[in-house]
């Protein structure tokens, strides 16, 4: 699946040796070419008096995978958490500026953060299945709090199956749905968490370094399913792993010390970054 490739266009004025191989496939979606899904405007996020995200204005495309990269502490997780209003769950956290998802502002006065979170799924770095629940109950956990949409029991098991299929886990667990979720391996647990996030059919899926604690084989499975999801869901993935960003994403945003330095299509970003800081990070001079 992973192939290295030649540079596939004319040499740009400034030759940069690609530190990462860019996967050739089509079609690549560049920012600005399709409808925007998440649009931020002068978004600034604070922890008390510390500014973690500074004045970020970005437009993330629909039904595509966007990666956010940057060195540790640059604010990429914080930026991600502003998209589903998880940032404010930390005491003394604050947000200025606006974030719109599919045209609706999520920070409006009358907007409930809970409603936002039910339409935006999130998967964290460490797999977090609920230990006292079975696999089935875990996947359905998000449904149970949203009773208006998913009432009947029959619908629940169908939805659970659909979510597990989308997460690529169905074949492995279909015979043991009632077993405890903690019996699964790390990679399976993470895919379970992805299924749990997908069960509510979110429009947006946020992934915060989802393969950081997984072995390479499981990481590969997760990357493949992320790539497949982009036809139906807008995916934003924060990652430390540059190769992963190159493999999986259509567009990439580079953050440094809370500021958005560059945002471009992945192939451009990794072969001809415009900002010298981006180039330094990608070629491994720091971070």
């Amino acid at each position, binding site marked *: 699946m992973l192939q290295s490739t030649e540079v596939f266009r004319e040499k740009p004025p400034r030759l940069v040796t690609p530190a990462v191989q860019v996967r050739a496939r089509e079609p690549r979606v560049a920012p600005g070419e399709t409808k925007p899904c998440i649009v931020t405007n002068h978004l600034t996020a604070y922890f008390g008096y510390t500014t973690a995200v500074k004045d970020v204005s970005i437009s993330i495309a629909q039904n595509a995978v966007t990666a956010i990269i940057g060195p540790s502490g640059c604010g990429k997780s914080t930026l991600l958490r502003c998209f589903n209003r998880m940032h404010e769950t930390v005491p003394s956290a604050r947000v200025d500026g606006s974030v719109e998802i599919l*045209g*609706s502002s999520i920070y409006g006065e009358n*907007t*409930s953060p*809970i*409603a936002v979170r039910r339409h935006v799924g999130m998967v964290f770095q460490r797999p977090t299945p609920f230990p006292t629940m079975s696999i089935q109950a875990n996947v359905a956990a998000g449904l149970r709090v949203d009773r208006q949409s998913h009432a009947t029991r029959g619908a629940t098991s169908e939805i659970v199956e659909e979510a597990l299929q989308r997460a690529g886990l169905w074949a492995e667990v279909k015979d043991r749905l009632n077993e405890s979720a903690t019996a699964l391996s790390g990679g399976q647990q993470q895919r379970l968490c992805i299924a749990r996030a997908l069960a509510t059919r979110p*429009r947006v899926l946020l992934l915060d370094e989802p393969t950081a604690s997984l072995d390479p084989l499981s990481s590969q499975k997760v990357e493949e399913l992320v790539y497949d999801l982009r036809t*139906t869901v807008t995916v934003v993935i924060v990652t430390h792993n540059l190769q992963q960003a190159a493999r999986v994403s259509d567009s990439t945003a580079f953050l440094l010390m809370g500021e958005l330095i560059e945002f471009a299509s992945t192939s451009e970003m990794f072969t001809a970054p415009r900002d010298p800081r981006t180039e330094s990070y990608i070629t491994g001079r720091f971070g």
Partner: protein
Amino acid sequence: MTSLPVDWLEKDRRKLRVDASAFSDKVYEALTAACALVIPALVIAIALAVFVAAWPAFSKLGLSIITTSDWDVAGGHFGAAPALFGTLVSSAVALIIATPLAIGIAIFLSEFSPLWLRQPIGFLVDLLAAIPSVVYGLWGIFVLIPLLRTSVMPFLRDTLHLGSTPFFAGPAYGPSMLAAGIILAIMALPYISSVSREVLMAVPRSQREAALALGATRWEMIRDAVIPYAKSGIIGGIMLGLGRALGETMAVTMVIGNRAEISASLFAPGYTMASLIANEFSEATNDLHLSALMAVGAILFVITLIINALARWLVWSVSKGRLA
């Protein structure tokens, strides 16, 4: 997958009542905060109840309750000095016996014990704290006191010739300050040991290794590097044990002999504040008598409150409040 309408959030916002969950959150917070408030309220309520009950005696008798020895119900004199004396002495004896043992076993468990033995022995020592007081008393009456009377006391008095000292003088019938001290020592032991064990184990390895690298023997390392580091925690543990010993009622009542007199001898029977209250309560006839008993209770309350608060503060300052 069909696409949701652009105003997907609008649609859900109507369905999801923003107030509903915010309201439930507030109710939840209020309920849990109310439960938490019960605890300080309880402390205040106990203090109030005890002092209100004790006030008649305090206002009439003042400090003579603890400075005089004459407990004369009919005459209206209530001097509980022997009880105060007994409480302090029995607890002191208990600490003298228990502290070296407790610290010794704490050192053993944290330094020398083979790993597989650590949990079982620690568990056995901690279990001592779970045994009900009345069971200790039962054992004290039928096992300890006969043992003291027939073996230990004669041994101390005759074989060790301690009978000539004022501390071991007088007839040795069994029920005595010594018996109370021994039982209290067993009851205080797990508290001192458990706290000491935790603070000793919390001493960082670097301290130990630095001492050993300087050429200290294992014992010297413990004496000079580990224990000083854990000192305030150990003292806190001792105070915890003291607090337990001061307030102990049943086991003491059953073995101390319940005689209101002040004597220097450990062989003599005595009285403690807690056993005084326990013994006389059901027979208290007039209000002043009751109030005097409550006054003794109030004094006990204050003493143990201070000791426990000090103990907790000491223990917390060492191990950041993670102990039960």
